[in-house]
């Protein structure tokens, strides 16, 4: 790893001011950034560790929304009573990201800022219609995730919180790669009133909504409603882990699992 100047600011103002300098980068849990720096895929002059900035981690209910701070770790979301009460499907998703040691370091802000095409959180944000709060503005999830490893974040802008509307019920189905534990296909479904939203990760270059699945579930929110669904395959990836047909089928199977989970969690 190339060396850098390590900074650990203790206020958000200081963090933003260091980040406005040349070639400065944010460090959250480091579970993606440090491996990339070790492989010399990424380097920077200044590394800004956000772990001492107050107010960036924590989970709170705000009216009809659940607010999760950017530096909140996967393990904390998975274990939170508040998340389990309001959006249990989200707690269950967090409980299956990587392994326990990854969950002890990795954060929601780091995960969504990285926008790995196989990451789990992006599916939850898009299906739940969440908003990403940054140091300068609020961005709807669908506009935040712009492409493979790309987001709407500007240089020097940091994610501060994610705001989730609380649905009636929600669930996630994930088929994890046995080696990396990332999703080969993951589908998050959320039902609020009469509206069902479904978002798919792992299967395309970037998280996307699946209108075919949403339409079928709008008619009847049951696993059976998805029995004869076929997807439009244009966005589906094909690689050595899973070819297009297999992945397309996997998406439907994971969507069924997500609905089963949502119904079960809702009791």
């Amino acid at each position, binding site marked *: 790893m190339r060396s850098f100047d390590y900074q650990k600011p203790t206020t958000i103002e200081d963090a933003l001011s260091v980040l406005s300098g040349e070639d400065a980068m944010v460090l959250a849990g480091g579970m993606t950034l440090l491996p990339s*720096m070790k492989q010399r895929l990424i380097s920077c002059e200044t590394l800004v560790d956000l772990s001492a900035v107050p107010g960036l981690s924590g989970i709170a209910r705000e009216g009809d929304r659940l607010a999760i701070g950017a530096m909140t770790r996967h393990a904390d979301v998975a274990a939170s009573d508040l998340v389990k009460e309001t959006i249990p499907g989200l707690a269950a998703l967090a409980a299956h990201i990587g392994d326990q040691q990854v969950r002890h370091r990795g954060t929601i802000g780091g995960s969504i800022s990285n926008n790995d095409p196989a990451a789990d959180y992006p599916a939850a944000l898009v299906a739940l219609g969440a908003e990403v709060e940054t140091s300068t503005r609020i961005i709807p999830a669908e506009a935040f995730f712009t492409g493979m490893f790309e987001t709407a974040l500007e240089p020097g802008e940091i994610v501060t919180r994610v705001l989730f509307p609380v649905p009636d019920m929600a669930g996630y189905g994930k088929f994890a790669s046995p080696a990396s534990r990332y999703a080969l296909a993951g589908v998050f479904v959320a039902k609020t009133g009469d509206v069902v939203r479904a978002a798919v990760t792992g299967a395309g270059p970037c998280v996307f909504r699946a209108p075919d699945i949403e339409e079928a579930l709008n008619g009847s929110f049951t696993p059976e409603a998805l029995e004869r669904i076929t997807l439009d395959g244009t966005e589906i990836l094909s690689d050595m882990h899973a070819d297009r047909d297999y992945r397309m089928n996997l998406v439907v199977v994971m969507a069924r699992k997500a609905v089963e989970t949502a119904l079960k969690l809702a009791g």
Partner: protein
Amino acid sequence: MKISFTLNEKAVSVDADPATLLADLLRENLNMTGTHVGCDTSQCGACVVHLNGESVKSCTLLAASVDGQEVKTVEGLAKSKDELHPMQTAFRDNHGLQCGFCTPGMLMASIDLVNKNPEPTEGEVRDWLEGNICRCTGYQNIVKSVLAGAAAMRDGN
């Protein structure tokens, strides 16, 4: 930069480059070679240590990040040369290791589990050790060891 932290209940202070990983700081600067580096790509768990009581992968953690924090390694488990930690005894008694390369990480991860969940089920042990890879044992005896270690820790042995 100067990095000061508590290591196995003793204060240490080391001068190191900011890009130093905790695993390297422990092994190279402090000569504490109990923490192993297997994959160096965050996959195998041989490098697991405790940071403020929680299991983390020290090959994917900057030494700079532990400044002011508490770190425990496998060297900090046994009370003395003759008195192993109950989890270590359980691994020895249940043949939970063959070559022993993965063992420091297995121990640190397992002890974190039992501290949080004193009576884990077999399924919970397997889930928790998802990020710890063993090339020798086939895991059966590791799981057996952790269950026995958990019982011994509950009994306060």
